[in-house]
């Protein structure tokens, strides 16, 4: 009897508990980062601006996963499916129905929120690795669903859809890439602020209570089922918006763009950025975008192996990802100030 109780108590939580204040950056640092993000396109080539846009977009998708895993403690390897739904929603609305690109984002978000919420229902019965497997199934199924014959008039089948890139409005004197970057930046900041506030709100506290101990949370009167599915819905919704932005930036959607590899990349980005640390999402996104390029630069034939080694180093040296680096550098800075 006592042994059983002990087992329940000592069982390690799936995700390490992160206090909610440690989930964000201080005001000063936030402003500096924001300033850099705003000023940077003025000094960069269009290609670099495009890469930075992709960085923000994948950052959003990683952030969404971070809310789910870091916030409510649920795993998902199926984020690529929601990303695909968002991308296709935006592409189809823009190309087949002539809807303005900015309007397609909230539609993609709402649709994916619904899809995520519904998927969260059966996911309630699963936990840990079983949930990861169920979402994995979703990710493998999605590219094939997009190829289905009867959807072809809308999705373009395997050929995919080409999306027209929007020009800067009001005759603003900036390139399409720069405009899209600022547009993405505004959306990203809005969603980031929303996420930070969500996690600080009553719902956020409920997510974290569930993450830390489900039984205790339900004993406290938290509707575990509701909040778990809600976390899924919010995460899917944000991923959908990221997917829609991605479709506009890349100007092309095809089933093969949204395979399980994308889902694993996002998962990787979350771990490297630091699970449960929202600003780390951007760092994680930078890792999944730039490190494969660096690996390719080192050796073309062994790029996969080089990437593996780099990833291994990161996990070995800083297991908590970018958050750990931030904490350490903050401590160093503190010491420096005292001296």
């Amino acid at each position: 009897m006592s042994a059983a109780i002990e087992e329940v108590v000592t069982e390690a939580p799936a995700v390490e508990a992160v206090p909610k204040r440690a989930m964000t950056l201080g005001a000063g640092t936030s402003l500096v980062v924001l300033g850099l993000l705003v000023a940077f396109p003025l000094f960069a080539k269009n290609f670099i601006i495009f890469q930075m846009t992709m960085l923000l977009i994948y950052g959003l998708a990683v952030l969404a996963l971070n809310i789910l895993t870091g916030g409510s403690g649920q795993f998902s390897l199926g984020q690529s499916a929601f990303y695909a739904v968002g991308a296709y929603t935006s592409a189809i609305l823009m190309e087949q129905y002539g809807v303005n690109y900015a309007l397609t984002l909230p539609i993609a978000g709402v649709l994916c929120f619904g899809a995520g919420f519904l998927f969260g229902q059966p996911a309630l019965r699963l936990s840990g690795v079983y949930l990861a497997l169920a979402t994995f199934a979703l990710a493998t199924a999605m590219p094939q669903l997009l190829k289905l014959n009867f959807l072809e008039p809308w999705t373009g089948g395997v050929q995919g859809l080409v999306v027209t890139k929007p020009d800067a409005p009001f005759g603003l004197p900036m390139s399409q890439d720069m405009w899209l970057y600022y547009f993405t930046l505004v959306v990203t900041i809005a969603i980031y602020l929303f996420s930070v506030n969500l996690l600080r709100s009553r719902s956020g506290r409920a997510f974290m209570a569930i993450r830390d101990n489900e039984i205790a949370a339900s004993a406290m009167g938290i509707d575990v089922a509701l909040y778990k599915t809600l976390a899924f819905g919010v995460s899917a919704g944000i991923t959908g918006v990221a997917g829609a932005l991605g479709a506009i930036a890349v100007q092309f959607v095809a089933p093969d763009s949204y395979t399980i590899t994308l889902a694993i990349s996002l998962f990787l980005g979350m771990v490297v950025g630091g699970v449960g640390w929202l600003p780390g999402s951007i760092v994680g996104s930078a890792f999944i975008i730039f490190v494969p390029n660096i690996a390719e630069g080192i050796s073309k034939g062994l790029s996969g192996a080089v990437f593996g080694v780099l990833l291994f180093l990161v996990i070995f040296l800083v297991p908590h990802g970018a958050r750990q680096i931030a904490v350490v550098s903050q401590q160093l800075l503190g010491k420096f100030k005292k001296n």
Partner: protein
Amino acid sequence: MYRQLRIAALATAVIGLTSGTALAQKKYDTGATDTEIKIGNIMPYSGPASAYGVIGKTEQAYFNKINAEGGINGRKINFVSYDDGYSPPKAVEQARKLVESDEVLVVFNPLGTPSNSAIQKYLNAKKVPQLFVATGATKWNDPKDFPWTMGWQPSYQSEAHIYAKYLIKEKPDAKIAVLFQNDDFGKDYLKGLKDGLGAKASMIMAEESYETTEPSIDGHIVKLKATGADVFISITTPKFAAQAIKKLAEIDWHPLHIVSNVSASVGGVIKPAGFENSQGILSAAYAKDGADPQWDDDPGMKKFLDFLAKYYPDGNKLDGSVVYGYGAAQTLVKVLQMCGDDLTRANVMKQAASLKDFEPDTLLPGIKINTSPTDFAPIKQLQMMRFKGEKWDLFGPIITDDLSN
């Protein structure tokens, strides 16, 4: 006074002369200089289609050979090849990197229909040649809407036209059953077959499509046999082509069996399906087969083997991708030589669209590359072949697809 005039006249004459020659001499766009031509390329070195990465490696080796032999009109080729892992968004990123960061003159032989579809609009808007794309889709031959995109190998439709031509001539009363893969490859092909048969499209009495996710296609074949067809056209990728050959033997159905060129590999399809089951199967080819001893004394193939020995010892002559990369790279070098000192992107496209009877070393004798401002399909000839013993035997004339323009 006189002297001054004379000097002035002389000066203008000299200026006129030098500027005249300067105009005729050198014109460059981004990516070309007096010493270098920068060529971009995108290949799936990783991911599901990584077997095709060999094409990029062969091309790199071929350009090394050209550089070692003095380059093109004194300019060395700098070949920048990136990995897209067969992922369209990655292809867009790499294409933009090539154009905006590496500043290449042309993007040459990027591989895969999805990847090329993803970058086509961008490259055409930027007016950067998307030259000799490595895919068999028919849509690359569209000079009106996409004047900066050109294919290289025969399109799926071209190949299907040729089978149609053969059937109309040799078996005008054929009852055709078609099995096709339900994707862009299969549909492109089927359309080509119907267009090729034209008024006689009613010869096709049954069509069955399969998904690549199906574990077995036996059911479709039994169904096709029941229709009483006497010609079976297998528009399939290697795994399914082999299954079909086996199943036909199993149910004792012996129609005239045509296999698409995609699945004509002896090692990848015929051998696993069994040589005894494959006798008499028909297909078509445009390139020489490294495994076929009849090319041992062929001068073009000798050059190819010398190249492999000296510049690409890892390359396997039996691998169709090596033969392919060699031919594509040779065609690009030919175009760049034709450009002379006018290395602008517009001139590269102009020269690529004026190839006349060019014969790369690795194409079948008699197959010639011809292009024009309204014809962006370089190779549109194939020769029929029949499987006999343990190899393909070419037979009949080189057939030209005259429908593709």
